């Protein structure tokens, strides 16, 4: 929901970043306020995942210009874990497998780290189990996934669902979902979207990277941005996504 009076969570200005000497982001601008839902669309290779990972602090990418602040704090002065503790969450386009670390152990470790950061009590395994049993309902996940190694042997869709479970447990202020809808079957998409909706409030915000209108039917965006060549070249309302669905990207690229 757009409320111009609400607090600015993320402010990105003219952000430039490169990987291996190649500039990928060529001046990105984006402002996200509490309560807002943003969608970022754009052709393959336009820089959407790069942008997401740069915000989360991925070490492969070097920021070469511009600024980004989170709740007024310079984002690039923070380590990835400090950004997470400040309330930024990235759901990965390609979630990694971590053999030997159980899903529940990781969730508890991450949760307790954030609790400590927020000056709250850590939960012991029993208490945490109560919490997690609630949270898995958000994504309608079978409890048997909790005892398994993180993402190991999970199907593509199960991995995506697992990312949203992590989001549900960590309750971030800003969630960046990189193609969380890709790989989900029709029912799973509905369940995950419902889960994400249930986590949204006027205090937090979500940025969804997606290729498909289908997700936006469930999680209705306040803003739709189109990224091309490492820049946001067009911003509109939810109707922009419908237009892209009907016309593709060529007309925009020609105009740019």
């Amino acid at each position, binding site marked *: 929901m757009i409320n111009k009076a609400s607090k600015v969570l993320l402010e990105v200005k003219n952000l430039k970043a490169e990987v291996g000497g190649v500039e990928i982001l060529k001046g990105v601008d984006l402002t996200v306020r509490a309560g807002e839902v943003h969608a970022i669309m754009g052709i393959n290779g336009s820089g959407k995942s790069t942008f997401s990972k740069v915000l989360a*602090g991925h070490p492969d990418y070097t920021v070469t210009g511009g600024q980004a602040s989170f709740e007024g704090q310079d984002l690039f002065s923070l380590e*990835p*874990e400090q950004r997470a503790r400040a309330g930024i969450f990235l759901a990965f386009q390609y979630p990694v497998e*971590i053999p030997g670390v159980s899903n529940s152990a990781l969730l508890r470790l991450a949760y307790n*780290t954030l609790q400590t950061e927020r000056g709250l009590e850590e939960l012991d395994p029993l208490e945490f189990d109560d919490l997690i049993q609630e949270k898995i309902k958000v994504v309608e996940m079978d409890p048997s996934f909790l005892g398994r190694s993180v993402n190991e042997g999970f199907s593509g869709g199960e991995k995506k669902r697992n990312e949203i479970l992590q989001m549900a447990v*960590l309750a971030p202020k800003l969630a960046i979902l990189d193609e969380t809808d890709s790989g989900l079957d029709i029912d799973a998409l509905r369940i995950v979207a419902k889960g994400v909706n249930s986590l949204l409030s006027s205090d937090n915000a979500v940025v969804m990277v997606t290729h498909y209108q289908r997700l936006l039917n469930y999680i209705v965006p306040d803003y739709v941005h189109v990224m091309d060549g490492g820049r946001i070249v067009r911003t509109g309302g939810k109707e922009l996504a419908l237009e892209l669905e009907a016309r593709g990207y060529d007309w925009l690229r020609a105009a740019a």
Partner: protein
Amino acid sequence: MNLTPKNLTREQCFEQLLLGKTVKSAGWLENIRVEALAHARTLNFPSVRHDDWRFTDLSQLYLHGFQPVDSFARLTLDDIRQWLIPGAIRLVFVDGCYAAELSDLKHAGAGVVVTSLAERLGDRQVESSFGRYAPYKQDAFVALNTNFFEDGSWVHVTGEVARPIQLLHVASKREVSSAIYSRNMVVVEPFSRATVIEDYVVEGGVGLEGGTYFTNAVTEVVLKNDAQLQHIRVQREDKNAFHIGHCTVEVGKNSVYSATSLAFGARVSRHALHIVQQGEGAEMHLNGLALVAGRQIADTHTQVDHAAPRGKSTQLHKCIADASAHAIFSGKIIVHTGAAGTDSVQSSRNLLLSGKARIDTQPQLEIFNDDVSCKHGATIGQIDAGALFFLKSRGLTEERARNLLTHAFAAEIIAKIPVPALVEALSKTILERMGGLGT
């Protein structure tokens, strides 16, 4: 205080050990001791020029002068409580001497004899098996052990034993750097089954105040036909100690021998495990883990001889080396003529945690037979950067994320131990060795 090395040469160190206290024992064992000493006199400690020792620098051990233990320390249960495995049948040795008051044999009922060797010398079973497997004529350490060992454990399995059997070898804190001899013998009769934990620890588990020590451990294991043994070996010595172990295993027809060998402690350690498949259709499963940091050196040498048809062996060995530590793995699989239908898989996986650490791994296959299936491979890697970033993006510090991933790498081996209380204790040990999961 005797922690400073005495700067002995390899020969001097060996000769000093040859001057150890003579242990008197009756009849047949006396003959073996005398024979072992005679062989010892013709041998010497290996140098790095010795092919089997080329990666393992023992000079730190040689620099020390080790005195034989002349008086045995008395410990209380409190001194060793942290090492006890609840519910286990337990033999305890302090500096190589049997400690009856610390042992717990009340559960050693039908199906198993668990005693000190010295108490059982009259047993024909002991006489017919002791010393027949350990190479005391070829190996200087085994020869010294066979002559100088004071006492050891005797485990004779004649039925299905559900409770784990813990052979706990404790080094006491001493003023003088001491040589400790540990000895074990396990015999598993047909259609019998047991779990044996060979455990090397230090009193209290913290750093020594006075001298350091050198554990020389020798174990012989025999599985007759249709027998099963889970053999777990935990080396969690003091971080300044030295540890050289040798284990020989003979596996009979249709028997299943499963070994898990862990090396966590000691400044310098070596464990040699030699398994001979004597009977047709026997299975051998070997899992190993060496976790070293600081300036530790840990060497694991294994050899599996498939000397009978249709044998099966699987092996997974992992080394984790941090700081300036050095881990060595050499795993030889030999398929002898006549060992038709052998099926063998060996894998060596290694994790380097620092640029100054070093891991040498040598999987070796020698096949003198057609009609066999043998696979082996080795990898050396670092902490996965993608996994590390993922964990940090969930709020974990770099250190915590690295420790979690290292622990997970090690956990694959630990988790195979069929004694939950030990798995839990070892899991904690690993975290402690890595500096914990602190934020």
